[in-house]
């Protein structure tokens, strides 16, 4: 049985090899340089600010809230598999990406829970390099097909990078095994990137799209810090509904600042405008690469009196977006009829499209609070880690959680409400809520509403105290995040589920061991 499956996987790859143009024009390949002009080698070692990731574009299956195994088009992980299966971003520095697969050959169905290899799948010594045997980006297509076919994740693999990083994202099109009538290209659109390059924007009508059997490496210097998202842009009404949606966030430069945050921001604003500016306010109407200093910062030095050392959502200059834990949450809906039609070659209706499964990061309640990865058996009989992201929101008592919320629904708007802990909206569309004079425009609310193509950042602040100084949100409390669009609280015909998850106030979190203590029981 296994050999037949491997053969089936090999067929598209063999077709590629039959038409190979030669070693220079290899179709599958990864790119992840160890140094670049702005990030040279450090002590002979790859520069850690070069981040890389490889993903497959293909199809697969996911499990819905009512247990239905649903067909997807999707992106799956082809690097960082060990981190992905743990629910972490799959992005690796070059040193973690450029690893020879040969000692740890990946298998069909990887990553299973406990999987240990984080390098690029398929990367093996290049027999034609000079000298031979170097890791040049040459890949063994059989390994790519073994792992990539039918390994679509929902949502797609998580990317996370830091400001000033260079990001090399390789998209490898492994074909869609369940739809032999299709030769879909795929692309990656980095949604919301400022001053995007049309060539790397992932819109096939505006540039190029990668064919089945090929790899395309997207290249971007990290944009301004914020919560973005990404998705395929081939026939978006179809590919997005079918599940080709994912998350990406950029951590602010401010995370690396230990001194006064305002001074650092003023300096960064100055650098962003080529030096000829005060750095207090923005040089252009879109504040490209800059954030206005908070009102109240010292106009000469920029000092706000707040030192760095924490984790922040934005370069706020005053620590106002500081958080203790962060959770990416993607709101999405699936139309089960459309997914069935998508698997069975029938004509698709966009006018009739109606989502019946409503998900947070690929799962509906109660799967949203099920720890660990979710697995779904594909038509090849193998269990794949289809949905690696739970949305269990644990907050250390007295702490703050950053929710990086994006929405990729293709049909309607959804609201997410917090029952108990107020939400503080600090950023919208990957930009800090602050006017150009530096005034804070963040606001408290109990709900946020997003449509497809929007994102925002919410801080759940559990640090409040009652008048008698007892904590407002003591350890052991449980709250809920749910959609008050009550029809979005369903799993198709099941009348309770959908867009809902739980917020737990725990006693503490150990960042080294990643263990939570004192959380409320289910």
């Amino acid at each position, binding site marked *: 049985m296994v050999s037949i499956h491997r053969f089936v996987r090999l067929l598209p790859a063999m077709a590629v090899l039959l038409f190979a*143009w030669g070693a220079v024009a290899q*179709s599958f390949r990864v790119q992840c340089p160890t140094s670049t*002009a702005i990030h040279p080698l450090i002590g002979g070692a790859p520069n850690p600010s070069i981040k890389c990731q490889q993903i497959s574009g293909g199809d697969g299956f996911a499990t819905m809230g009512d247990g239905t195994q649903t067909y997807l088009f999707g992106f799956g992980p082809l690097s960082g598999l060990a981190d992905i299966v743990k629910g972490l971003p799959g992005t690796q520095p070059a040193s973690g990406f450029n690893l020879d697969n040969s000692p740890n050959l990946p298998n069909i169905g990887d990553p299973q829970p406990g999987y240990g290899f984080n390098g690029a799948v398929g990367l093996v010594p290049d027999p034609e390099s000079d000298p031979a045997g170097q890791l040049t980006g040459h890949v063994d297509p059989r390994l790519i097909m073994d792992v990539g076919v039918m390994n679509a994740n929902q949502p797609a693999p998580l990317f996370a990078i830091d400001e000033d990083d*260079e990001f090399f994202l390789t998209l490898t099109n492994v074909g869609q095994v369940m739809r032999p009538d*299709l030769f879909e*290209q795929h692309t990656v659109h980095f*949604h*919301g990137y400022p*001053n*995007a*390059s*049309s*060539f790397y*924007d992932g819109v*096939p*009508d*505006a*540039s*190029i*799209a*990668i*064919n089945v*059997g*090929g790899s395309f*490496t997207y*290249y*971007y*210097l990290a*944009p301004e810090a914020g919560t973005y998202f990404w998705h395929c842009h081939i026939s*978006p*009404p*179809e590919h*997005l*509904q079918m599940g080709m949606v994912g998350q990406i966030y950029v951590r602010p430069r401010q995370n690396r600042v230990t001194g006064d945050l305002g001074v650092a921001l003023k300096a960064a604003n100055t650098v962003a*405008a*080529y030096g*000829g*500016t005060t750095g207090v*306010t923005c*040089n*252009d*109407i*879109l504040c*490209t690469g800059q954030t206005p200093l908070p009102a109240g910062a010292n106009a000469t030095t920029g000092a706000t009196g707040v030192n760095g050392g924490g984790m922040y959502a934005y370069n706020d200059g005053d620590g106002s977006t500081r958080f203790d834990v962060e959770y990416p949450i993607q709101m999405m809906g699936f139309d089960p009829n459309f997914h069935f039609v998508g698997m069975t070659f029938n*004509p*698709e209706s*966009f*006018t009739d499209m109606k989502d019946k499964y409503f998900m947070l990061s690929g799962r509906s309640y109660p799967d949203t609070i099920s720890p660990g990865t979710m697995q779904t058996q594909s038509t090849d009989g193998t269990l794949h880690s289809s949905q690696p992201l739970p949305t269990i929101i644990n907050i250390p008592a007295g702490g703050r959680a950053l929710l990086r919320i994006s929405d990729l629904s*293709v049909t*309607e708007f959804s609201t997410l409400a917090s029952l108990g802990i107020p939400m503080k909206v600090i950023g919208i*569309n990957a*930009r800090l809520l602050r*006017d150009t*004079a530096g*005034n804070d*425009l963040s606001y408290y609310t109990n709900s946020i509403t997003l*449509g*497809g*193509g*929007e994102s925002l950042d919410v801080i759940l602040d559990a640090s409040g105290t009652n008048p008698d100084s007892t904590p407002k949100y003591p350890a052991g409390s449980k709250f809920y995040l749910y959609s008050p669009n009550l029809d979005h609280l369903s799993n198709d015909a099941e009348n309770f589920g959908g867009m809902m998850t739980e917020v737990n106030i725990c006693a503490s979190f150990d960042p080294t061991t990643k263990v939570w203590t004192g959380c409320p029981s289910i």
Partner: protein
Amino acid sequence: MRDTNTKTLVGRLLRGAAAAFVSLLAVPAQAGVPGITGPTFNLRAGPAYISQPDGASIYSWGYGCSQSPAGFLPVVGMPNQNCPDMQIPGPTLIVHQGDMVTVNLTNNLPAAAGNTSILFPGFQVTASSGVGTAVGVLAREAVNGSTVTYTFTATTPGTRAYYSGTQGDLQIEMGLYGAIIVLPNTVPPNCSSTLNDQAKAANSELDFRLAKAAYSHAATCYDREYLFQFSEIDPAIHRQAEEQKGVPCTNNSGCMVVETEVYKPAYYMINGRSMPDNMDPHYAVQYPRQPYNGNPHMHPGELTLLRIIGQGRWQHPFHEHGNHVRVLARDGNLLLSETDTTKLAGPLLFTTTTTPGQAMDGIFVWTGKGLNWDVFGHTNDPLKPTAAATCTPDANGYHNDPTAPNYYEWCGDHNKALESKPFGNVGSGGPVTLPDPGIVANGPWYGGSPYLGPNATTRAVGSTPIPPSGTVANSPTDEAGFAFMWHSHNEREITTNNIFPGGMLMMMLVDSREFVINESL
């Protein structure tokens, strides 16, 4: 009508080819904001058929001119400019701040439709009350065959919607909506002659703007402007109205019984047209009732004013690829900082969601700053002298020469290579290797290379550009701009009656200064 071949590759290729073909027929067509001037406007509401890219002819109602308007804008004029007796959206009314505006509305809808009216949110409107008018729920109405007159002072600048105040669920759906633009009466001095103005003049580009600033506020200067109105069509509603249009009637409330729920739109439009029709020129003869287009173009560094209005019934997450938009105002109300009114306070949005009846003004600008590679493929490699150029940073870091083809190039990335070992005459030593052209598919708006402009593209790909010149909507040897899709992100709305591509979709082109943007074409 369902197209069972929607999903086949051939079907999609044909439609893609059709899209490119229609755009080519028109020659690169640009936009601007055309409209009619008053301050007295003689409008009528009447029926006609509008067309969709799938060939459908849809019975609709719209506002139009009952006689020739006082004038047309922009001043430079557009070929074929006219104000038909019915159009969707209604004629864009353009007035100046302080004008006393008079709108005479004649009801030429079928008698079965009953009365009609117009609402002008944001203004204090007085209406006539003579014979032929009637009290309405929201506004004074014109009885079938008669005229009502609305008067108001255009007190503040900005973009606002106007639409029927009578049986809105039916009449707005049928197409009775439009835009009214009030231009500021004082131009902030810093907006009156900018370096972008000089650049336009150096390239012999005509000025199609209605004004030089959106408001009398120094932070609202702009170099180009576009108006986008978003609306939907549920053909079942229009069909019911068409079937009952001949019913004899003397009621003010009409005699039609049209179910406007369940609402199931099949057509989604920007400025009354679905893609790709929306990218044909203004006043295109093939759409006599749909005169306005959505086909934005701009040069790097040009402040582009977006006047965005939600018409229809649904919200649409209108997503602009390429950069954020700084929202200036909502419904004509500038969003300014509470502590410093010289500073803007509107949000930066990459998705400017529309809401029915709501208008917003925003500024978009693209420069390529921060890409970490030179979008013109410049290099100071002495072996590639044709790829050399100067970039002298101004106070903000952009090339300061308005007459140069690379005006507004971000000098921080000047001469930085993208490609590691390029074949062409562009910088080398960069971080990436481009894929083999044989394993990728080229889009109809692909300029032919990663680089901006025909000079850079030709250098990058050599004498036989891929794709070959002249067969696509963004020719490598002529335009080679950067194309960005501007569209509703409720992706099923970028379809026309179940066919992709269609609906609320347009391509925005950032053009190198080598390409003249002529918005009269």
